[in-house]
Each structure stands twice: as C-alpha cells, then as structure tokens.
C-alpha cells in the first residue's frame, strides 16, 4: 500500500542539551556509534555506500561552507559520496528524504543519514543575528520568534485560541520529556509556570519556546528487499513529502496555517496511502507552542480552528488518540536544527518497534508521522511517514 522501497535498519542519537563539553565532531561520532550498535543483526560500516548530512547553521560553530566531508571525514568513511543539506528547520528530515531517494532510485543499497547542530559554541546574540541576514529592507529582524509569534497573534484573533491553550502544549511536552532519556529538560512544569514566564516575543512567553540546543542523530537506511540481512523488526518509509510557500512575509497568503506543511502532508499521506486517523504516533514541529497547535490543523488531526479543542481534551497526550511529541518535542527535548528531524524519526522507529520503554505508546495500525516546518517566512516543510507494516 505504501511506498515501502526503503527500510530503516538502525537509529542513534545523543542526549540533547547545552553541551559545552562536547565538540561537534564528538556529537556526530557518538550518534553514529549508537546508530551502528542499534542494528539488530550487526552492521559493518563498510556496507555504507553513500551518506547525507543535515546542518542548518554551521557558521555558528565556524564550519560555514565545509560540505559533506564534515560527516564522513569525522567517522572513518572519507572517500564515499556525501551531500550536505540545508533546508531550514526541516534540514535533518530533508537529508533523510534525499537519502531515501538515493536508495529508492536503486543507485545505493545502504546509506547513512546524519544531522547535527552545534548551537551553543556561539553566544545567544549570534543566533539572534539571523534577524540581520536576508534582505535588510524586507526581512529585518526576521528571527524564528518574529516569524511564529505573528501566527499566534492571528490564530488567537481568528479562532479564539488563548495563551492557556498554547501553554497546555508546553505542559504536555514537558511531561512527556520526563520519560525521555534523550531530552534536554526532564522536569514537569505547570500551566502557571508557562503563563508567568517572561514574554520573549508577544504573544509568546519563554516557556512557549524551544531552547537552543546542541545535538546529533543518525539513521541507517537500506533497500527494502534486502532488509532481512540487517533487521529482525524492519521499519519502512511509507511516504515522504516536501512543500514550500512564498519567500517573503509580505507575499504570504495566510498567517494561521503553514501552506508548506499542508503540501508536504498531502504528498506524504498519498504516498503512504493512509489518512491522519491511521497514525499511532506523531512527532511534529513544536519550535513554539503555537506551531504544534497549527500543525494539528495543517496535518489533518482536526478541522481548521479546532486545535484548541484537541489540546483541551487531551487527544494528543501520550495516552490519547493521537499521541503527539511523546519524546518531549522540540520544546522539551531541544531543537538542534539539523539533528531534530532525524531524532524525531528515531523516536518513531523506537515506538513502532515497541522499544520505547516507559514512554511506549500503543501501536495499533503501525504508522508514525514525523514533521518539520520552518526556513525563511516558515516556507519549507518536510514530512516522513514510517510504518512497521511490510505492505
């Protein structure tokens, strides 16, 4: 039924956080070794024929234009083809998507995909410096906060979404993160904590926002027809999608949804041959609490404007009908841009194989969804659907 030409045979990541003590090279090495180790039937790195690596803001650690060798040159694989991908917040997931195409095309049998971000080797002001990039006359001060906060303001205005609804997302994801050993934060917070936290970009408070994080994650992919060589419980890529929207804020047609998400979701659902109701778990982009609420609507979990009811009724809790961001999401686990998408895929992989320990969700239909949205004017989105169903 689904695309199912590519299988995931292993995943690995490191605990995300403010990793002042770790270099970007070390983070990649550790995630890679965890990934190799995770392959059921054992894995010889010599089988890797090509690699993709995602990193969105490499200049933050002084590696601005180094290319794909920044992955393979650090893990003993120098010599094989490697492509570096940048696609805003979907960087990691898009590296994964492109790696899938490398395998599905029949050119490669086994490939590695990695994503990492070293955000804390630079001061916070450097990250804010993104607001000075782009075109000073058109995009001045366009940072993640100033792109997403206006969406919150308009969503509140049109649909009656409140700051409490947004805070509920943070409370849920922080609660989920307590059970995730890879999460940056592992403490519950209360609704009041979110509402009382300082305003960073009205209408968003500090605890409505994901932190700045260092992290790395990897996945190994192979052609579906040879998966038995590596895996006892294979997971398949059922569908991939990618969508874009207009480049500048003044060109956008809506400030209450992300058209890029709607397009990537349409493509991925169609490829996988499923509907949102078929999902057992979703790891969606929650760089800010409002993002997760808008994702519910764009990904088809509810009708437009109904996200507030979904969060109020606990539908997206770990034990709800569609558990969303069981890993803690970007808000709690952290958002090392290039690593984020692949870490979300790792989370789905563990749940679909029922290896997620205490935070394991119930798997009924065998599908999980990964989603990112971001980039200039929130105009890039990637979505990946994984399944444990062979057909």
């Amino acid at each position: 039924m689904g695309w199912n030409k590519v299988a995931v045979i292993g995943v690995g990541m490191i605990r995300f956080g403010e990793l002042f003590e770790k270099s970007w090279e070390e983070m990649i090495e550790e995630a890679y070794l965890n990934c190799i180790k995770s392959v059921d039937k054992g894995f010889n790195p010599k089988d890797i024929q090509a690699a993709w690596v995602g990193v969105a803001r490499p200049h933050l650690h002084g590696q601005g234009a180094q290319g794909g060798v920044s992955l393979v040159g650090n893990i003993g694989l120098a010599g094989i083809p490697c492509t570096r991908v940048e696609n805003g917040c979907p960087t990691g997931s898009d590296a994964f998507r492109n790696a899938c195409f490398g395998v599905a095309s029949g050119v490669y049998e086994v490939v590695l995909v990695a994503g990492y971000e070293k955000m804390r080797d630079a001061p916070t002001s450097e990250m804010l410096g993104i607001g000075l990039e782009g075109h000073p006359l058109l995009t001045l001060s366009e940072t993640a906060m100033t792109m997403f906060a206006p969406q919150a303001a308009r969503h509140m205005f049109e649909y009656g979404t409140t700051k409490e609804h947004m805070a509920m997302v943070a409370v849920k994801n922080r609660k989920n993160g307590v059970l995730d050993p890879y999460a940056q934060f592992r403490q519950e917070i209360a609704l009041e904590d979110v509402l009382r936290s300082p305003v960073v970009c009205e209408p968003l408070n500090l605890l409505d926002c994901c932190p700045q994080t260092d992290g790395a994650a990897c996945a190994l992919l192979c052609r579906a027809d040879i998966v038995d060589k590596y895996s006892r419980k294979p997971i398949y890529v059922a569908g991939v999608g990618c969508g874009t929207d207009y480049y500048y804020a003044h060109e956008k047609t809506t400030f209450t949804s992300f058209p890029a998400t709607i397009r990537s979701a349409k493509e991925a659902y169609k490829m996988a041959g499923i509907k949102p109701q078929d999902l057992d778990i979703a790891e969606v982009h929650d760089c800010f609490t409002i993002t997760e609420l808008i994702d519910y609507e764009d990904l088809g979990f509810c009708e437009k404007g109904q996200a507030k009811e979904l969060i109020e009724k606990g539908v997206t809790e770990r034990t709800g009908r569609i558990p969303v961001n069981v890993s803690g999401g970007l808000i709690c686990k952290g958002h090392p841009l290039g690593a984020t998408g692949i870490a979300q895929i790792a989370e789905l992989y563990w749940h679909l194989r029922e290896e997620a320990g205490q935070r394991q969700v119930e798997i009924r239909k065998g599908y999980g969804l990964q989603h990112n949205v971001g980039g200039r004017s929130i105009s890039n989105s990637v979505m990946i659907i994984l399944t444990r169903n062979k057909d």
Partner: protein
Amino acid sequence: MKVGIVGYGIYIPHFRMKREEISKVWGGRAKGENSVANLDEDVITMGAESALNALSHSGLQPSEIEGFYFGTNSSPRINHSLLGLIAETLDLSKDIDLVDFASSPRANVAALKACQDAIVSKRIQNGLVVGADCLSTLPGSPLELYGGAGAAGFVLGSKNVFAEIEGLHSYSTYIMDRWTTPKSFSLTEYEPRFTLRYGYYDHLLRATEGLLKKLGANVQQYQHVILQQQEEGTFRAVIKALGLNQGQLETGSFFSELGDLGNASIFLGLAKVLEKAKEGERILMLSYGGGTSDAVSFKVNESIERAREWAKGVEIYLRTKEYVDYFAFLKLQKSFKKEEEIPKLGLNPMSPALWRDGSFVRSLKGAKCTQCGYVNFPPSIRRICIRCGHTQFETVKLCRTGKVHTYCISVYQPVGLQGPTPIIIADMDDGNRFRALGTEMKLGGVRIEMPVELVLRRLIDQNGVGIYGNLFRPPRITMGN
C-alpha cells in the same frame, strides 16, 4: 512673473523634552519644551516626510518638480549627499538638479533663493525647497535647553501661487557666533551676549531695513512676522527695535513648543502662518545664521482659501506628541549609547543589492501582473509573477496606509536593533500586504486591525552608515502618496 508658494508641508518628530527636565539635571531655569528626533530619524527622513506633504499639498505630480533645494546643518554625511534618497522616495524625475545648502541655519533661505532664481530665469517651472535640522548639543551645554528637530518644505512655482515672494534682502558679515566642528558635531557658541548684539540683533535689523527700503514698505504693513529664534528672549531687543507688536508674531511662533529648529525654524513658522493667513495679508520672514540674515516678504492672495482645504495640518504634528525623560533624551541625542558590537548585516549598507532594490522599496513601487493582478514587490527582484508565473507587469504605486493583519512584539532584538519592537504585517488599503517594524507605538496598544502608515526611517546603522527603509507608525498625518 509672480513666483511664490504653491504647496507647503512640515514634519515634527513625535517626542518632546520638557526644558525643566534638563534644568533639573544641570541647573538653570527654563520653561517650554523641545521636539526630539527619534533614533531612527535624521534630516533625511524628516525632510522626506515634509517634502511628501508639500508635494501632495501642491497637487503637482512628482515629475513636475524640476529642482530640489535642501538646507540643513545636520546632514548625517559629509562629502556625500543624501538628497537622492529623498528624491527617489518622492519619485522625482532623475533629470533634475538636487542641491545641498549647508553651514548655517539660514541655508534654507539660500535654498529658497536658488529655487526662486531658477524659476524667475525660466530654467525651471516648479521647484521643491526643504529646510530640516536636528540640533545636537553636548549634555549640560546651555544650548541643550533649546535644541529641537523638525523639517518644513515648500513647492515654489509661478502657477496657482497662494503666497507670492514680493522681495528679499540679505545682509552678511563675518562673525564667529555658533559653530560645530566636524569631529564634535555639537553646537558650540562663544559669548551669547556678544553674538546676540553684533550677530543676531544687528543682522536682523539691517536685513529688514534693506528689504523695506527696496519695497518702500514699513513693518506695520505686515500682519505676520516670523523670526529665527535660537534662545528664549533673544529676540526681544529685535522686536523692540523694529517696533513689532505681539499680534504680528503670534501666528508664526512656536519656540516654546518646539525649540530651535535651525533650518526648519522659519519655514515651519511660515507654514504655520499660511494655515491662518487671509487674502491680502503680508508676511515678513527673517532668518539668521552665521553672520547672515535674510528678510523675505510674502503677499498672500485669494488662492489661499483653496489651498487651506487640502493642507496637511501643522496643528496635528504639534498636538500628537509623547514626552521623554532625560535618560531617554540623551539616548535619542546619541549622547548615551549602549556599548555593543557592530551589527553583522547579511548585506552591507553599501551593497549593490540595496542600490538595486532601495528605490523601489522606498518609493513603494510594485509590479502588477497583467495576467492575475497580483502586485509583486519589489519589482527589481520579481521578473516572474510569484502567483501565476506570468512575466508582464505594469508599475504601480503602493499605498502607505493600512491596518494591522498580525503582529508580534520582539523583546530580544539582534545587535544594532532595540527591543521591544513591534513587527507588523499589515493589509494595506490598496489590497497589498506589507511587513515592517513598528516605531512610536505604545507597546501595550498594538492590536490587529489597528490603522498604521508607512514612513521613511533609518532602519539600522552599520559603521555609521544607515539603511533607509520603511517602518510602520500609528497614523499621525497621512504622508502624501
């Protein structure tokens, strides 16, 4: 040929400083208040707004302006003219003369004379004259008590004139009274009593006498007299010597409300008088600066009534204001600066990209798709319609007014920008959408559907070079399109 005023426009910044606040810090006694330019303002942005107002008031098309004459003492640049920036914001023809006048607070009259001469000699038909200043003084200096900021401009022509220039006389000597040096940029004076007596007083009297002699007139024939005012009380001796009465001075004075506006000073006074003057009245305008005084005589005709109908109100600019405290004042005067790194802009202010796109952005021109009607902006980066892929366009002028579609208030801004700052996405009245930062907004008061207008401001500086672009502010007086 009767040459005179066919349009006027002014600009006064939003902020005011009470003089007593300055006295509290440095001692002395002073009443009244001064206008203070915002951090994103300078003579270019203020001059542009007054010029847009004047042009709109004249009813002339930008293409009908054949010369632009600008007088200021506070240009942000030396060795480089920024007039082209105002000209492109107004969408003036590129085949015209742009002339800077400087080095004195009467550079405005020098500009006016140059424009008048060009019209009289039939070299041009209509010209634009603007005077603008932003007086900067050292903290604690006696001049700090009276420094203000503002701009005022006129369109001169020979058709539809409502205030004719009757005559003009200048009197000049060499006297060291007030000056700035290129390094300090702060106004300094030697001995006020000396310069008042042999500078201001002497020159104003001689210029007035010269003019009246030329015209065979006397001061009693003038219903309105506008004096360049630099400090409280300095003009009393002149008033007495000329035999002027309070009634003649009342309409054109604003010193207690705005302070010394340098090159904007008497121009603003003149605009203020024109809002009230009646047919047949005469106006005497007296400049002074750096050892020169000009006396200019205007006569108002019947067209003034019609001109008043679409006048851009001086009163509105005077009325809409917000007081700042002394710390905020020092910050606005750039005497009190945050120590921070130089902003690392993705594009250098000198980058060709800003040269390519800047004029379209500042003059608010769009490329309207001839197939689907979507207005692509700016045209310099859009050769293919982003909505339908069509490649043929017509150039359209975008509207400056609209309503907030959505917004945020960013507390933490990148280096070089100050938070908290509203960032506004607005639905403009012509159906287009625009994104810009907000200025002079009450942070708790920003709301969806709130009206806003786009104005020219200095967005950010890198190494002292500013990038000029659009910001939203709450509508104050709608800038001419």
